[in-house]
């Protein structure tokens, strides 16, 4: 790894700041789509950028720390010598309100929850990645979204999390709705191998 501003061990303040700002713009676009789908105001958080070991992943999900049960989808992406995955993790108590907001009538079975989860994952992950790629001037191809599990403890989810990485740049975006009990975490992971390219893209933006 070349360069001393962002190595596998260290993320300097300027780099963190730029990633946070790029994530801020990307998550805003995704939130706009979610707001339209659910006809509700999405409270935008400040994205949290970290460089984490795999066993520290739970730290990147701080907003879901106290949640009993979660469901999650992950979707890989690769392109322009950058690779990573996006995870969308819902607090399971969100589905009742999501169903109401999307005017779904009927019992909320695990299948219905899965459908809602996949629909929202497509919207949020797609819009967020598009926002990132436009700003960084790169392009990603996205894999199929994969269900990581339903009604899991966060720890089990973290243990289940697949993907071949040891250390990653993580961006945590905890979304919640203003007037409803809906909360979810969008977590973007960029693999260690992607850091050098990301850094050069960011450096170009700083010029």
């Amino acid at each position, binding site marked *: 790894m070349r360069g001393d501003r962002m190595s596998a061990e260290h993320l300097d303040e*300027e780099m963190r*700041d*730029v990633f*946070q*700002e790029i994530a*801020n*713009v*990307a*998550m*805003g*676009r995704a*939130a*706009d789509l979610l*707001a339209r789908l659910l006809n509700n*105001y*999405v409270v*935008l*958080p*400040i994205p949290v950028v970290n460089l984490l070991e795999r066993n520290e992943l739970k730290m990147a999900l701080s907003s879901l720390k106290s949640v009993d049960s979660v469901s999650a989808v992950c979707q890989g992406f690769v392109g322009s010598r950058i690779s990573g995955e996006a995870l969308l993790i819902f607090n399971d108590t969100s589905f009742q309100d999501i169903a109401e907001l999307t005017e779904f009538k009927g019992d909320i079975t695990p299948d219905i929850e899965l459908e809602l989860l996949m629909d929202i994952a497509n919207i949020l992950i797609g819009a967020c990645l598009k926002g990132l790629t436009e*700003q960084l001037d790169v392009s990603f191809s996205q894999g199929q979204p994969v269900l990581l599990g339903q009604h899991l403890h966060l720890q089990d989810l973290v243990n289940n999390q697949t993907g071949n990485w040891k250390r990653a740049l993580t961006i945590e975006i905890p979304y919640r709705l203003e007037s409803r009990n809906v909360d979810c975490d969008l977590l973007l992971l960029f693999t260690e191998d992607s850091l050098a390219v990301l850094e050069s893209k960011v450096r170009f*933006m*700083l010029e």
Partner: protein
Amino acid sequence: MSTPVLICDDSSFARKQVQRALPPGWDIDVTFAGNGEEGLTAIRAGKGDVVFLDLTMPVMDGFEVLEAIKKQDLPCLVIVISGDIQPEAMARVKKLGAVDFIKKPVDAQRLQQVLTDFGIYAG
């Protein structure tokens, strides 16, 4: 006299982007603030006749800054520059007295158009 301009955003990268988008010929005295509280202090000190304000910030967010400006009747023109592009966010900041809303990443032409539209700087 130079116009006191305040750029209030928690990201130093975003503050630089805004500064670079300002018209080069504009006679201004620029102050930077890293959150809403610092921004409000600068406005009270007369350093923000024109304010470029972010919304998503720690300590005190942009909505709270606008509320405080309104409540205390502080003399400044606020242009919000934010990634929060929900129509609801735009409606709220206008209601709170912001003159206009510019989405991030900030575009220099759009910013200069807003300055012209509101008679702040015509070039």
